[in-house]
C-alpha cells in the first residue's frame, strides 16, 4: 500500500483538476457551463469522494504504523536560497486530510440541496473544489513557504465564497474585511517566516526546531529576536483562526452561503491556524514565553467569543461566535503544551460544528430564509432530523458526556488545570457559558411555539431595529422583545430583500409552514452525528489513542500524564456540572420564565450593551484604523496634488514642474524651458558636488 503515500499529491490535485475544468468551461462557454449542474456536481463530489477514500487509506496505513512520507523538489532558487515544494504526509497530516476531505465531501452533498435554486450553483461547486484543493495543499505542505502559499489561497477562496452573492453589499463588505484582516495576520506571518529563515536557513518543518535551538544555545541570535519572530509567525494563525484581536472578520463572514460557513468558517480553514501552530509547535516550545502568549490569547478568545454568543439572535452569528470561542480553546490547549488535546478538539469540533452549521442552514432553508431565532421556535415538530442532530451538536459542544466534545474539552481543561489555575478557571467558566448559549440557541429555535407568523413577535423584532444605529452599535434599547434579548447586524435589520439569503420576518408569510429539508441536506447531518457522538472515544483520558497516534508521528512527546482517577473526576466532574448548570439555566430562562431575559438585560444594561456590541471591537477598529487610514490616504493625495511639497525642497527642481505649477509654464517659449532646465541642472550638480 506504499502507493497511497507516494501518490498523496493526488489529494489536492484532483479537486484542482475539477475546478480547472469547470473554470475553463466558464471562460470559454459560460452559458453552457452554467447549465451543466448535475455533471459539475457529480464531478466535484466524485473527485472529493476519491480523495476521501484515499485519505482514509492513508489514515489506516498511518494507524498501522507507517512512517511519515515526504517528497520535495527545488521549486525556485536564487542566490543560494532554495525554495522547495512538495508534499508530506505524517500522522498529523493523515488525520487532518481525513477530517478535511470528509467534511468537504458532506458539505458538497449538502450544497447540492442547499444551492439548488441558486443561479450560481455551478460557480459554487467550482469554488468549493478550488477551496478543497487549497486546504488539502495546506495540510500536506512540508515547509513554511508552501504552507504560506496555500494559506493565502484558502484566504482567496474564502474571499470568493463569502462574496459569493456579489450583489449583496453586506457580503461584499464581509469578503473584503475577511481578506484584509487576514492580510494583516499574513503580514506578520510572512515577516516571521523571513525572520525564522534568517536563523534556520531552511524552510522545512523538521529542520526548524533544531536550528532555532542551536541558535539560542550558542547565543548567535538574541533571544528577544527569536521571540519576536515566533510571535510574528503566530500573527498568521491569530487572523486565520479568528483569535482576539484579529477575530472580527469571522462573524461577518457568515454573509456567505451556509455550507461555506460550515466548511470554511467552522471546520477547516479556521482550524488551519491551529494546524500551523501544531506544525511549528516544536519551535514554539523551544522559545520561552511564546506558548504563554498563545495560551492567554486562546483563553481570552474563548471567553470573549462565548460572552458575545449569548446575546446573538442570528443563528449563524451565534454559531460564529461559538466557533471563535472553541478555536480559543484549541489555541489555549496549544499554549499550555497540550498539543494532542488541541488537535483532538479540532477534530471533534470539526464534526459537531460542521453539523451545527449545516443544521442551521437546514433550519434557514426550512423556515424560508430567515435567520432570526426570535422568529423561529417550535421547529422540532416540523424538522425532526434537523432538530435531533442539532441537539446532538449542542450536547457535544456543551461537553456533556459521552458526546465527543466532552472528551476533547476535558483533555484541554485538564491540561490547563496543570498549567495554571486561572486559565483553567476561564476555560471552565467559558464551558458553562457555552452550554448556556448553545442550549438557548436550541431552545429558541426548536422548542416552544413557532413565532414566524406571530404578529406580536414580528412587531417586537421590528421595534428592536430602532435600537441599532447606523454604525451597527446598539446605544440602548427602548423596547425589548419579550422572549429574549438580542440584536443583529444593522445591514440585516435595515434592509430586506437585499439578497435571497435573509429576508426577515415579513416575507415568510408567503413561504408557508416550516418544512424538513431534502435528503441531500439531512443525510450529511445524520452522517456527521455519528462522529459527533462517538469520536471522543479515540481520545479517552485513560487510553488516549489519538494522542499517541499524533505523538508517534511527530517525534514530539508532550509531558506524559499518567491517568489519575481523582484528577479526572475533579476536572470532568466540575466541567460537566457547570455545563449542566448552563443548560438548566437556559431552560429556566427561555422556557419556564421567558420574560426574564429581557428584564435581566435591562437590569444589567451596560454589560449587556458591551456584549451585544461585540466588546466594541468593530467600533474601535473603525475609529482607529479605517478612519485613520482614510484620512492618511486623503492627506497623501492632498500632498501629492499640491506638488509633492515636502520633497520639493530636497530636489530643488520639481517645484517648477510639478502639479498645478506646470500650467503656467506652458507658455510655449522654448528658451524659457531650456533656461529652467539648465539652471536646475546646475543647481543639482552643485548640490551633488557638495555631498
Amino acid at each position, binding site marked *: 500500500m506504499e502507493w497511497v503515500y507516494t501518490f498523496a499529491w493526488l489529494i489536492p490535485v484532483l479537486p484542482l483538476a475539477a475546478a480547472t475544468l469547470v473554470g475553463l468551461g*466558464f*471562460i470559454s462557454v459560460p452559458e453552457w457551463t452554467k447549465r451543466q449542474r448535475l455533471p459539475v456536481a457529480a464531478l466535484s463530489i466524485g473527485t472529493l469522494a476519491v480523495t476521501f477514500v484515499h485519505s482514509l487509506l492513508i489514515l489506516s496505513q498511518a494507524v498501522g504504523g507507517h512512517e511519515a512520507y515526504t517528497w520535495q523538489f527545488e521549486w*525556485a*532558487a*536564487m*542566490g*543560494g*536560497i532554495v525554495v522547495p515544494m512538495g508534499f508530506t504526509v505524517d500522522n498529523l497530516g493523515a488525520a487532518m486530510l481525513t477530517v478535511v476531505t470528509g467534511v468537504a465531501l458532506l458539505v458538497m452533498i449538502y450544497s447540492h440541496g442547499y444551492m439548488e435554486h441558486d443561479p450560481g450553483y455551478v460557480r459554487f461547486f467550482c469554488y468549493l473544489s478550488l477551496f478543497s484543493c487549497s486546504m488539502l495543499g495546506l495540510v500536506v505542505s512540508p515547509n513554511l*513557504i508552501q504552507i504560506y*502559499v496555500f494559506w493565502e*489561497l484558502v484566504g*482567496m477562496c474564502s*474571499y*470568493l465564497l463569502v*462574496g459569493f452573492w*456579489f*450583489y*449583496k*453589499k453586506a*457580503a*461584499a*463588505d464581509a*469578503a*473584503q474585511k475577511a*481578506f*484584509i484582516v487576514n*492580510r494583516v495576520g499574513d*503580514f506578520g506571518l*510572512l*515577516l516571521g517566516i*523571513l525572520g525564522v*529563515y*534568517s536563523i534556520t536557513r531552511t524552510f522545512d518543518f523538521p529542520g526548524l526546531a533544531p536550528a532555532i535551538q542551536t541558535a539560542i544555545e550558542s547565543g548567535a541570535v538574541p533571544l528577544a529576536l527569536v521571540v519576536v519572530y515566533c510571535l510574528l509567525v503566530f500573527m498568521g494563525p491569530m487572523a486565520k483562526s479568528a483569535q482576539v484581536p484579529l477575530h472580527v472578520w469571522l462573524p461577518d463572514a457568515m454573509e456567505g452561503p451556509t455550507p461555506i460557513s460550515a466548511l470554511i468558517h467552522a471546520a477547516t480553514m479556521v482550524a488551519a491556524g491551529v494546524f500551523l501552530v501544531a506544525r511549528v509547535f516544536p519551535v514554539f516550545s523551544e522559545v520561552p514565553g511564546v506558548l504563554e502568549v498563545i495560551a492567554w490569547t486562546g483563553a481570552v478568545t474563548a471567553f470573549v467569543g462565548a460572552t458575545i454568543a449569548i446575546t446573538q439572535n442570528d443563528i449563524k452569528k451565534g454559531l460564529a461566535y461559538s466557533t471563535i470561542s472553541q478555536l480559543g480553546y484549541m489555541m489555549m490547549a496549544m499554549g499550555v503544551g497540550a498539543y494532542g488535546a488541541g488537535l483532538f478538539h479540532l477534530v471533534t469540533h470539526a464534526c459537531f460544528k460542521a453539523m451545527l452549521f449545516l443544521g442551521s442552514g437546514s433550519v434557514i432553508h426550512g423556515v424560508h430564509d430567515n435567520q432570526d431565532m426570535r422568529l423561529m421556535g417550535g421547529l422540532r415538530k416540523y424538522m425532526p432530523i434537523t432538530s435531533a442532530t442539532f441537539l446532538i451538536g449542542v450536547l457535544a459542544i456543551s461537553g456533556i458526556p459521552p458526546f465527543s466534545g466532552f472528551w476533547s474539552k476535558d483533555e484541554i481543561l485538564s491540561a490547563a488545570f496543570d498549567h495554571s489555575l486561572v486559565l483553567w478557571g476561564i476555560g471552565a467558566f467559558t464551558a458553562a457559558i457555552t452550554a448556556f448559549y448553545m442550549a438557548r440557541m436550541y431552545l429558541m429555535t426548536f422548542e416552544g411555539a413557532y413565532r414566524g407568523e406571530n404578529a406580536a413577535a414580528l412587531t417586537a423584532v421590528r421595534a428592536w431595529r430602532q435600537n441599532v444605529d447606523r454604525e451597527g452599535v446598539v446605544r440602548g434599547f427602548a423596547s425589548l422583545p419579550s422572549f429574549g434579548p438580542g440584536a443583529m447586524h444593522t445591514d440585516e435589520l435595515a434592509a430586506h430583500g437585499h439578497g435571497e439569503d435573509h429576508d426577515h420576518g415579513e416575507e415568510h408569510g408567503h413561504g408557508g409552514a416550516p418544512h424538513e429539508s431534502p435528503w441531500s441536506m439531512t443525510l450529511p447531518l445524520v452522517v456527521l452525528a455519528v462522529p459527533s457522538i462517538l469520536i471522543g472515544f479515540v481520545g479517552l483520558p485513560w487510553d488516549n489513542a489519538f494522542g499517541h497516534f499524533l505523538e508517534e508521528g511527530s517525534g514530539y512527546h508532550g509531558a506524559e500524564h499518567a491517568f489519575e482517577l481523582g484528577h479526572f473526576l475533579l476536572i470532568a466532574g466540575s466541567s460537566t456540572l457547570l455545563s449542566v448548570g448552563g443548560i438548566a439555566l437556559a431552560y429556566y430562562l427561555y422556557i419556564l420564565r421567558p420574560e426574564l431575559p429581557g428584564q435581566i438585560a435591562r437590569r444589567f444594561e451596560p454589560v449587556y450593551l458591551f456584549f451585544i456590541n461585540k466588546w466594541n471591537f468593530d467600533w474601535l477598529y473603525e475609529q482607529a484604523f479605517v478612519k485613520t*487610514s*482614510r484620512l*492618511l*490616504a486623503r*492627506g*497623501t*493625495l492632498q500632498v*501629492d496634488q499640491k*506638488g*509633492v511639497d*515636502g520633497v520639493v525642497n*530636497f*530636489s530643488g*527642481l*520639481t517645484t517648477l*514642474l*510639478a*502639479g498645478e505649477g*506646470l*500650467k503656467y509654464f*506652458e507658455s510655449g517659449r522654448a528658451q524659457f524651458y531650456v533656461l529652467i*532646465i539648465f539652471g536646475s*541642472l546646475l543647481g*543639482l*550638480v552643485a548640490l*551633488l558636488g557638495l*555631498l
Partner: protein
Amino acid sequence: MSVPWLSLILFFPTLGALGLALLPGEVSYRFARVWALTVAGLTFLLSGLVAYNFDYTSTKPQFAETINWLPQLGISYNIAVDGLSLPLMLLTGLLVVLSILTSWQLNKRARLYYVLILLLSTGVLGAFMARDTILFFLAYEMELIPLYFLISIWGGKRREYAGTKFLLYTFLSGVALLVAFLSTYFFSGVNSFSIDVLANPASPYPLVFQFITLGLITFGFAIKMPLVPLHTWLPDAHVEAPTAVSVLLAGVLLKLGTYGIVRFGLGIFPEAAAQFAWLLSVLAAINVVYASLAAMAQTDIKKMIAYSSIAHMGYVVLGIASLNETGLGGAMFQMVSHGIISGLLFMLVGLIYEKAGTRELPKLGGLFATLPVVGAFFVGAAMANAGLPGMSGFVAEFMVFRGGIERYPVATVLCIFGIVLTAIYMLAMLARAFFGKLPANLETMPRVRAWEMIPATVLLVICVGLGLFPTLATGIFEPNVAELVQQLDARTVAQLPR
C-alpha cells in the same frame, strides 16, 4: 558575417512603420491594424528565436553586433543581449503585440497611431539592447517622441497637459543621463562610450565623481520609474493615455528606469552604488507606502492602478538596493511581473471604461452582473497585484523581501506592509466596482465579446505560469545577476577595505 538578428528585431518595426507611413493613398484602420500586428508579431517571433538560441549558462553579451559609428568620438553601434536585457526584450515584444490587439477597434487616425506604436517599440528595444551609453541615450530619447504624440493625440480631455508634462519630465531625465554619460566618458579617458569598456576602467573612478554621476543617473532614471517625489507626471499620463499606451507605459517604459539603474548605476559605479544603496532602500519604502496611500484615495480606477504601478516599482528599487543575488533577482523578476500585472490591470480598466463609459468608482457597481469574465479576471489581477502566491508577483516580492530584510529591516518591513495596503485598495475597488447593485443606467451596457479577452488571457496565463514555475524567468537572468553581485562584492571590497 552571420545574420544580424538583433538589428533585424530592432529595425523591423521601424521598417514596418516607414512602410505603413509611405503607403500611397488612404489606408483603412482594418489594414493598418493587420499590418501593425503582422510586423509586431514577426518582431516578437524573432525575439523568440533569439531567446531560443540564447545560451542561458553564459553571462556574456550575446548576438553582439558592433559597428564603429563615430570612431573619433568613440561612439559605436553596439548592441547585444544578456540575461538582464533578454527578459525585458521579450516582454516588450509581447506587450507591443498585445497592445495592438487591445486597440483593435481604434479608427481615429489609425495609420499614424500604429506607425507611432511601432516606432516606440524600436526605441524601447534599442534601449534594452544598447551596449553603448550614447546609443542607449538616443534610443531612450527616441521612445519619448512617439509616446508624446500617442498621449497628445489619442488621449483624453487633458491630453495636452499630460503630454507636455510627460515630455518635460522625461526630457529632464534625459538631460541628467546625458550629463552623466558625457562626464563618465571624459573622466574615463578611454575614448569609448561602450558600457563594457566604461565598466572596467583602467583606474577606478574616484568616489566623489562616482557619487555625482551615480546621483545624476539615479535622478534621471528615478523620473522614469518613477520614484516619489518625481512621479506626478505618470498618473496624469496614464489617465489621459489610451489603454494600449498605458499598457506599454506601465509594462515596459517604466522598466527602462530600473533597468538603467542596474545596467549603468550598479554596472559602472559599483563602489558608489554600494554606499548609495541604503538611500535607494529609503526611497523604495517611501515609494511603496506613499503611492499606496495615494492609490487608496483615488476614485478613478485608472488613476488608482497608476499609483499602484508606482508603488510596485518600489519593490524593484528595494531589490536593487539589497545588492545581493536574491534581492537583485527579485528586482529583475518584479520588472517582468510588474510589466505583466500592470499591463493586465490597465487592459481590464480599459474594458470597463469602454463598456461602462466611466471609470469613476462612485458611478460603478455590481459589474459582476454584466461583465462576469472581466470581473473574474479583475479579481485574479487584483490578487496578483496584492502578491497572492501562485502568481508572478508573489515570487518577485518574496525574493525582494528576502533579499532586503537583513540589510534594511525597516525599509523591508514597510515594503511588506505595502502588500497589506495593496490588498486594501484593490479589494475596496473591486467591492465598489464589481460587487453590490448595478446602477440602472448600466443595465444596458454592452457586453464583452470573447475575443476582447484574448490579450488579458495571455497575460493572466503568463502571470500564473511564472508564479507556478518561477525558474522559467530566474533561469534567464540568474547567471548575470550572480556575476553582477560578484563584481559588486569584489570591487567594493577592493576599493573600500574595512
